C-alpha cells in the first residue's frame, strides 16, 4: 500500500471516538414548535431581517437578506408566524439578532427535481447566482458564504477543486454518513461546483478511518466514469482545514494572509456540495443540515437531519436526552467547538455536531505555569509559536504578536490540546485578535 498523504507540519491525533455514531444512518429530527433563526451564521455582516413580528411566513421564504460582501441570505425551513426579533447568543460567543418563529406543525418545504438537463444548460454565472439565492455557506464549520468562494477573482485561476470529506474532528460522522448515503448527489454537486469555478481537476480527500465512505465514493466515481480522483489521507488533525488539506493533496502552501485561490485551489465541504446539488436541481434554499449528536453523556448517539433554527435542547431530546448529567455541552467538534450554557441556542448552518461530554472527557485539570516544553510549537500546523504569542498577548504587546503572525492562527486547538500546563492558549489567541480589532477601531 502506498504511503498515505498528509500535511507537512504540526498536527495532533486525538482519540477518534467516531465509533459512537459511525453506523447510525441519517434520521430526520422531528420539527420543533419554535424556530430561532439567527441572521448571522458566520463572521462578516449579519443578514438584514426582511420580516417583522406578526408576519406570516411560508416554508423556504427568505427572511434575511445578505448585507455586504461576505454575507448570505437566510431562509426559514418551516412556515408560521414571526413572534419577535430578538438578540440571541450564538455558540461562538457573540450575539446576533434572530427571528423567533412559531412554526406551523407539519409545514415543510417541497420542490421538484428539474433533472440533470436543466442544470447542464445553465452557465456558471447563473449557477453562482442560484447558489447565492439559496443562501449556501460552507458547511464545514466556519460557514463562509459559498457564492463568494465560487466567484473567482479576476486574474486568478482555479486549477483544482478539492472536495473536503476529511472530517478530522473526533466524534463527528455527519460528512461520513452523507458520503455513504448521498454519494451520487454529493458527486453531482461537486461536478456543478467544478463547472462554476472552471477547475481543471477535482480531488476528493477522505481520511483513511472512513473506509465505507472511501469505498462508496470510489465505486460511484468509477461506475459513473466521472473525472474525479478519490484520495485516502492519513488520520491527523487538523487535516480538514482547507490549508492543511491543500498541503496534503497538492503539496502547495497557502501564503500567510492569503486564500486558497492564490495558489489555484478551491476547497468545498461534502455538505456544501450536497447543498449546491439541492439548490441547483430543486431550487432548495439551505435551511437544514446533517449533524452528529454524540458524546459519552448522550444516551443515543446518532446522525440527524435538523432544520436550521431548531433549539439544541430539542435535538438532544430527540436523541433520548442525556444518559448522565453532562459536564459540558459542546457545539461542533471537541477540538474547535464551543461549549454553550443555554440549551435553547439554535442549530445554525455551520453546526456540525452536538456533543454531551462527561467530566472525564472534559479533563478540567487546573492550570500551571508554562514549562517551555515546546509541544505547542511542534503541534501548531501553521508553524507559529503559541507560547510566545500567548506571553506577548498577556503582556499587552499585541503589535509584536501580529508581527509574529497571530492572525494566521485559525484556532484549531492543537496547542491547547497538547499543552501539559493546561494553558488556555486558543482563548489567548482569540483575546489577542480581539484586542487588535479594538485597537484598529
Amino acid at each position, binding site marked *: 500500500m502506498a504511503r498515505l498523504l498528509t500535511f507537512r507540519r504540526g498536527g495532533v491525533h486525538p482519540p477518534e471516538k467516531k465509533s459512537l455514531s459511525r453506523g447510525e444512518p441519517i434520521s430526520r429530527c422531528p420539527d420543533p414548535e419554535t424556530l430561532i433563526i439567527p441572521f448571522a451564521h458566520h463572521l462578516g455582516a449579519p443578514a438584514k431581517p426582511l420580516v417583522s413580528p406578526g408576519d406570516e411566513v411560508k416554508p423556504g421564504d427568505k427572511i434575511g437578506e445578505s448585507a455586504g460582501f461576505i454575507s448570505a441570505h437566510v431562509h426559514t425551513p418551516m412556515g408560521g408566524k414571526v413572534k419577535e426579533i430578538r438578540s440571541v447568543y450564538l455558540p461562538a460567543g457573540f450575539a446576533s439578532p434572530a427571528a423567533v418563529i412559531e412554526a406551523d406543525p407539519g409545514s415543510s418545504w417541497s420542490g421538484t427535481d428539474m433533472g440533470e438537463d436543466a442544470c447542464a444548460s445553465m452557465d456558471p454565472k447563473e449557477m453562482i447566482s442560484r447558489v447565492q439565492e439559496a443562501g449556501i455557506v460552507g458547511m464545514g464549520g466556519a460557514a463562509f458564504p459559498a457564492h463568494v468562494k465560487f466567484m473567482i477573482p479576476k486574474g486568478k485561476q482555479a486549477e483544482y477543486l478539492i472536495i473536503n470529506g476529511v472530517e478530522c474532528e473526533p466524534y463527528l460522522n455527519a460528512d461520513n454518513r452523507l458520503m455513504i448515503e448521498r454519494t451520487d448527489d454529493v458527486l453531482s454537486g461537486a461536478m456543478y461546483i467544478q463547472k462554476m469555478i472552471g477547475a481543471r481537476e477535482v480531488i476528493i480527500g477522505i481520511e483513511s478511518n472512513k473506509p465505507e465512505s472511501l469505498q462508496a465514493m470510489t465505486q460511484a466515481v468509477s461506475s459513473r466514469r466521472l473525472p474525479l480522483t478519490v484520495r485516502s489521507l492519513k488520520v491527523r488533525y487538523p487535516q480538514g482545514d482547507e490549508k492543511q488539506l491543500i498541503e496534503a493533496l497538492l503539496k502547495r502552501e497557502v501564503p500567510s494572509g492569503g486564500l486558497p485561490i492564490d495558489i489555484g485551489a478551491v476547497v468545498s465541504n461534502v455538505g456544501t456540495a450536497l447543498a449546491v446539488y439541492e439548490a441547483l436541481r430543486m431550487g432548495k434554499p439551505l435551511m437544514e443540515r446533517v449533524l452528529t449528536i454524540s458524546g459519552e453523556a448522550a444516551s443515543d448517539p446518532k446522525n440527524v437531519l435538523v432544520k436550521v433554527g431548531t433549539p439544541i435542547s430539542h435535538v438532544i431530546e430527540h436523541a433520548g436526552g442525556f444518559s448522565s448529567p453532562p459536564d459540558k455541552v459542546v457545539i461542533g467538534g471537541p477540538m474547535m467547538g*464551543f461549549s454553550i450554557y443555554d440549551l435553547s441556542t439554535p442549530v445554525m448552518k455551520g453546526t456540525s455536531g452536538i456533543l454531551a461530554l462527561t467530566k472525564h472527557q472534559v479533563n478540567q485539570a487546573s492550570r500551571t505555569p508554562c514549562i517551555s516544553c515546546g509541544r505547542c510549537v511542534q503541534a501548531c500546523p501553521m508553524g507559529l509559536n503559541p507560547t510566545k504569542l500567548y506571553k506577548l498577548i498577556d503582556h499587552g504587546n499585541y503589535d509584536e504578536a501580529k508581527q509574529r503572525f497571530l492572525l494566521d492562527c485559525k484556532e484549531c486547538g492543537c496547542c491547547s490540546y497538547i499543552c501539559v500546563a493546561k494553558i488556555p492558549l486558543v482563548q489567548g489567541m482569540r483575546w489577542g485578535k*480581539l484586542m487588535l480589532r479594538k485597537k484598529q477601531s
Partner: protein
Amino acid sequence: MLMNVFYAFLSIALLGALLGIGLAVASLKLSVKKDKRISSVEESLPGINCGACGYAGCAAYAEAIVDNAEELTLCSPGGKDTAEALARIMGQEIDFSAIKQVALVHCWGNEETRSSDFRYEGIEDCNAAFIYFSGADTCKYGCLALGSCIRICPVSAITKREDGRIHVDRNICIACEKCVEVCPTKVMQMVPHDSDWYVACNSPDKGAMVRKYCSVGCIGCRICEKKFEDGGFKVDNNLASAQYDRQYSQREGAAEACPPKSIRMIE
C-alpha cells in the same frame, strides 16, 4: 631608555591634543540647534512617561509643545500646577475651567448581588472573558471584575476589594482614561474629581429584567428624577445617571429613596 619613555609620553600627548581639538571643532560645527525651552518644559513635566498625553513619553510631549504648539493641558498627572508652569515657559494663557476627572466603576454588583449564567474558568482578564457570551454574569453591562483595568493602570490607582468589587482611588487616578478604553462593558466612566453621589449601575435593561439578575441594579423607576427636583438625576433608556454640572442639594434624599440602592456615595 629614558628617551623611549619620553617619546611615548610625547606621542600620546600629541595624539590627545589633536583628538581634543578635533572634538572641539566637531561639537561646534556639527551641533544641532535645539530650542532651550524643550529641556525646561521637560523638567516641568512629572517625568513618569505614562503616555496619558498621547505621546510616547514626557520628552516627546515636551518636543511637541515647543515644536508643534501642542496644547499645554494634556498632562493629567501633572494637573493644574504643571499646566501653569508650562504656560509660564511658553508665555501663554490657559483656560482652567475644565475640572479634573477621575475614573469610576459604575456598578455595585458582585457575586452576592447578581446571578451568573455559567462558571467561567478561562484566562483572568475581562476582555478574554468577554469573548464568550459577553462574560458569565447574566448582566451584560456590569463590571466583570477580572482586572483588565488594574493591569493597565500606570499609577496603580485601581485595586480589587475583598468583596470582589473594583475600586479606583480618586486621589491617585491621573485621568489617563486607559481603563475606560480597555473596559469591554464600558462600565468604567469618567466623572469630575469632586463629585459626591453617583448611580452605580450601567444596565439599560428593563426594570423587571434587572430585578431578576441583580439586587443592586437600577430599575429605571424614576423616583430619583421625579421626587427630587434638586437631585440632579436623569433617567434615560431605563437607566438613571447623575449630572455633575453643579452642586445639588437633594442627592442624599434620592439615594435613600432609591429602591435597589443604586445611588451611592463615591468612596
